[in-house]
């Protein structure tokens, strides 16, 4: 790898000070003069038809400026997911912003704009809605049965999408097996728990143009979906990129209701309208889809796979939206292609129910798959007495293998074996005792899991946007500005972009600033999701910075009377190769470029050159060249109290091949934050609903429990097995989502090692542990 000055160093995050002193640029803090406040009226019923709505009393309440219902909302049907076209063939179009048909408890049926949020809230109580209740169905397998209530006309048996893949000869594979293992693995509904709520401020102009400020993960996606929802041209919608947002984790990857509704209310009133979700509203706005995985695997005595059959049933909720894509990613990258098995069939079902709509959440179908497959892998090794590390190594890919999904691409960098080896060494895997062998009521166990195939973006997936762009401009004071539509979710995208530009322009990272961008002025970028930002936006920004450098060298060659090809950058200076004393500061070149041809000096007028004139600027917009797979293995030690069923995680070792690590501290932060979410998924998080009414039982963090710092294990170690990904920026590929994909499987395997009983349903609550132990 080449010598780097900025990339690979834990530079100071430019947004850190701002955030710890209040974070005034969070969208939740945005306001405009004369702004109104909107609130949504939500259906108490999970399945109903709206017979009539009377808004007259609400309209009379002082302070109320507008009330809208489904009758005021264009009935445009589309896919609200940001990262695909609104009418993508690979997705399902079944969503309208407001409808006279209710399919989940909490679905918005009317909205109010008023002078304050309290007045708007009060007005909601005055809206009279007459519903005709319909029979709901909450369980996807019940929903698939004949005679179940049908949610959408064009989806018989409530199946929104049923993809499948197959290769080899399944029957022959199972016939060839020495052992066959079968299991059912169930995951639950959870929320990403971003700290900043979904919130927007939408303003409108008299000519119908609208400007949107929102806490979301994709400005261009929001622009497109707003235009489709409202039935106006995209160019009439300008989405301002938030400086940063207070977390998304995939939970802000679709237009829900607030932005289009705020736009309609703004167009009606001529005033800006702000809508902010309460935490209770956020809980029902997005979720990781629960998936039930039926898994049957044939193996030889030596542990080699011979056949695998997988059936995955995903609870899509009321609309397919993300559920149509999560099932695909779960199939492709969560269960089917990560492992090498000669005869495989996977069948997926994305099923409508009267539950809340699913959304994105880091890992997007893979945590559910990893939990199922890695739990069963652990069972296989246990039953057959196989070395669990050799077993993984033997059934996965190797560096240089063809990419199992992407035709014509190669696994250029792939160090899973190193991750397994180094992780095992660090936690002391060889001291692991047989299952359920520790004395006393508190039993310790060590377990691990790995995920052998993941993404650095979405290249290769049908219909998913992937290209990125940037503009880089050098200023006369020796700083550079970057315009990029890549949104920082809190995971450090701003820092990453400054590192790239600083590296290419020979600047300190502090000299680079990521500045204002909106969809009117900045080049397109796909969302910050799918672990893609460093790889895709990083590469595009690097290309823009190279353009800028070329432009700088062109100006410098005029100033310095040298060939541009002989120039290089060091310590803020342009130098001629072979003449280290020749340096001219970048500031001088930039000043000359941005000045008049004739310059007055003490000695009289001085002529400069025409060639050196013009802003030193570069831009690029490009798709990434590939989609390299990061890999990781995670080892966990737990203690299980067999009296109460409580599980405590004591020690975590996460070993990852992320290619070149851009920012070691940020990378460790990803491991730790990802583990926190993954541990919540494994042990406690569960968004629950009343089984009769479909109402969400969690309205805030009193009811929905996530790990706090006090539940975090005392020791989390990150090991980065640095490889060089030749297609990536400076050898980098992705890393973030794997930190969350693996923990549930690793923890479940450690719990098994502690108590000798397997829990196959998440979360592994104390009560489930005691039931598994036969103590209840």
């Amino acid at each position: 790898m080449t010598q780097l000055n900025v990339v690979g160093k834990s530079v100071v995050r430019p947004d850190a000070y701002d955030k710890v002193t209040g974070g005034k640029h969070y969208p939740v803090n945005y306001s405009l003069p004369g702004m109104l406040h909107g609130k949504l009226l939500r259906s108490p019923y999970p399945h109903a038809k709206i017979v009539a709505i009377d808004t007259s009393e609400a309209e009379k309440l002082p302070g109320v400026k507008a009330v809208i219902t489904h009758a005021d909302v264009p009935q445009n049907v589309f896919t609200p997911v940001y990262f695909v076209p609104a009418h993508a063939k690979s997705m399902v179009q079944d969503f309208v912003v407001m409808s006279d048909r209710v399919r989940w408890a909490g679905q918005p049926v009317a909205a109010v704009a008023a002078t304050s949020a309290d007045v708007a809230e009060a007005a909601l109580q005055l809206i009279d809605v007459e519903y005709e209740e319909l029979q709901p169905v909450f369980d996807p397998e019940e929903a698939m049965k004949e005679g179940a209530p049908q949610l959408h006309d064009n989806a018989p048996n409530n199946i929104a999408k049923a993809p499948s893949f197959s290769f080899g000869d399944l029957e022959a594979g199972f016939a060839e097996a020495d052992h066959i293992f079968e299991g059912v693995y169930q995951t639950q509904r959870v929320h990403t728990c971003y700290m900043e709520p979904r919130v927007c401020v939408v303003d409108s102009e008299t000519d119908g143009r609208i400007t949107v400020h929102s806490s979301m993960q994709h400005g261009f996606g929001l622009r497109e979906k707003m235009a489709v929802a409202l039935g106006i041209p995209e160019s009439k919608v300008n989405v301002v990129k938030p400086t940063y947002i207070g977390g998304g984790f995939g939970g802000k990857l679709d237009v829900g209701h607030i932005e289009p509704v705020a736009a309609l209310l703004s167009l009606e009133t001529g005033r800006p309208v702000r809508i902010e979700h309460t935490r209770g509203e956020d809980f029902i706005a997005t979720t990781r889809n629960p998936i039930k995985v039926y898994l049957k695997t044939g193996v030889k005595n030596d542990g080699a796979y011979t056949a695998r059959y997988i059936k995955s049933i995903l609870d899509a909720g009321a609309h397919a939206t993300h559920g149509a894509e999560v099932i695909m990613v779960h199939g492709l990258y969560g269960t089917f292609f990560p492992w090498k098995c000669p005869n495989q069939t996977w069948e997926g079902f994305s099923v409508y129910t009267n539950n809340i709509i699913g959304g994105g959440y880091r890992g997007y179908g893979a945590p559910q798959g990893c939990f199922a497959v890695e739990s069963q892998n652990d069972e296989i090794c246990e039953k057959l007495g196989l070395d669990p590390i050799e077993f993984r190594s033997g059934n996965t890919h190797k560096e240089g293998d063809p990419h199992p999904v992407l035709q014509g691409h190669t696994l250029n960098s792939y160090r899973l074996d190193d991750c397994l080896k180094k992780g095992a060494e660090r936690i002391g895997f060889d001291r692991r005792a047989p299952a359920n062998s520790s004395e006393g009521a508190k039993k310790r166990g060590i377990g691990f899991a790995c995920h052998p195939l993941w993404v650095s973006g979405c290249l290769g997936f049908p219909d998913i946007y992937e290209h990125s762009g940037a503009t880089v401009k050098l200023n006369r004071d020796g700083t550079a500005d970057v315009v990029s539509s890549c949104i920082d979710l809190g995971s450090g995208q701003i820092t990453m972009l400054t590192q790239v530009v600083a590296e290419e322009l020979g600047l300190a990272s502090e000299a680079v600033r990521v500045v204002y961008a909106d969809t009117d002025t900045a080049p397109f970028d796909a969302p910050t999701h799918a672990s893609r930002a460093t790889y895709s936006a990083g590469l595009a920004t690097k290309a823009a910075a190279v353009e800028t450098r070329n432009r700088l060298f062109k100006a410098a060659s005029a100033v310095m009377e040298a060939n541009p090809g002989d120039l290089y950058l060091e310590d803020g200076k342009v130098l001629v190769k072979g003449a280290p004393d020749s340096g001219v500061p970048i500031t001088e070149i930039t000043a000359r470029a941005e000045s008049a041809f004739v310059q007055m000096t003490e000695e009289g007028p001085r002529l400069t050159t025409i060639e050196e004139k013009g802003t030193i600027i570069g831009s690029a917009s490009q798709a990434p060249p590939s989609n390299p797979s990061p890999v990781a293995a995670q080892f966990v030690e737990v203690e299980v109290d067999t009296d109460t069923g409580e599980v405590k995680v004591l020690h975590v070792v996460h070993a990852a091949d992320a290619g070149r690590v851009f920012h070691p501290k940020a990378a460790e932060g990803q491991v730790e934050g990802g583990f926190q979410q993954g541990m919540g998924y494994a042990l406690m998080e569960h968004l629950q609903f009343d089984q009769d009414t479909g109402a969400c039982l969690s309205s805030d963090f009193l009811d929905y429990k996530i790990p706090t710092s006090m539940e975090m294990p005392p020791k989390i170690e990150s090991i980065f097995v640095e490889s060089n990904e030749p297609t990536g920026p400076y050898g980098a590929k992705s890393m973030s989502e794997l930190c969350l994909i693996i923990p549930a499987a690793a923890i479940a395997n450690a719990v098994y090692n502690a108590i000798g009983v397997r829990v196959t349903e998440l979360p592994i609550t104390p009560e489930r542990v005691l039931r598994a132990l036969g103590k209840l």
Partner: protein
Amino acid sequence: MALTSVEAFHSPADKASVVQLLQKHEDNALIVAGGTFLHGLASRGLLTGIEVLIDIQNSGLDNITINTDNVVIGATTRFAQLETSQEIAQEAWLGAVKDAIAYPPIQIMNSATVGGSIASSCPFFDLPTSFLALNGAAQAHGPDGSRDIPLEEFFSGLFENSLAPAEFVTAIKLPQPPANSASAFIKLETNANDLAIVNAAVALTLDAEKKCRQARVFVGGGMGETPVRASAAENLLTGAVVDEDSIAGAGEAAKSGVDPISDHRASAEYRAAMAKVLVEKALRKALARVD
């Protein structure tokens, strides 16, 4: 739903002014101190009609007094103050108090008050279970002056207590027990700022032969509308040598005596099983603390 109906916030400097405000605003007034439960109650629609908040943190009620016959903890004493109090830390008989405040995170420790934990009358709180085991009484102040209400009478239902109109809690009083006394508290929770799924507190007094002279055993957290006294467990222990046999018997008795709720956090079956486990663990912990 936020506290949209609140129109006034008072911060009276003495008890008499608190009573005056309560008399004036009656059911529309709510006493607040640390405020840690305010949002939770309000967002569940449990504080509708509250128009006046009375903050008693400036009413001089945050003293801890150690007397020969009792310990008096002022209502606005914060958990953090309790934690740093040497007197409380040293006394084995106050172990259940020390244990209960060891669970919450620093934000709660710095805000939540002893009086609030009692006056809220929430069966999922921790200090009430401990104070009940310690035979505590709430000191209430009202238009007719001050009176002590034994906590077993004080807690009368879910979020309900026996305070008279315009009365409020000014302190908790814990009687000094005989020598050789110790107490302990244990809680099951999902995370550090959780309400108890189940909790248990025990207080023991042993005689010179290490036999149990007196035992008080309470379980809370979904056991009922208030923490529940495990009388059968107490009877079993009293007069017995406290050992693994009697501890197991007491645990079993505690389990048989409860009829817990099922909710989305735990089933009644699990809660009942945990009543046994936690009572046993708390007894062992208390026993280890007796000199």
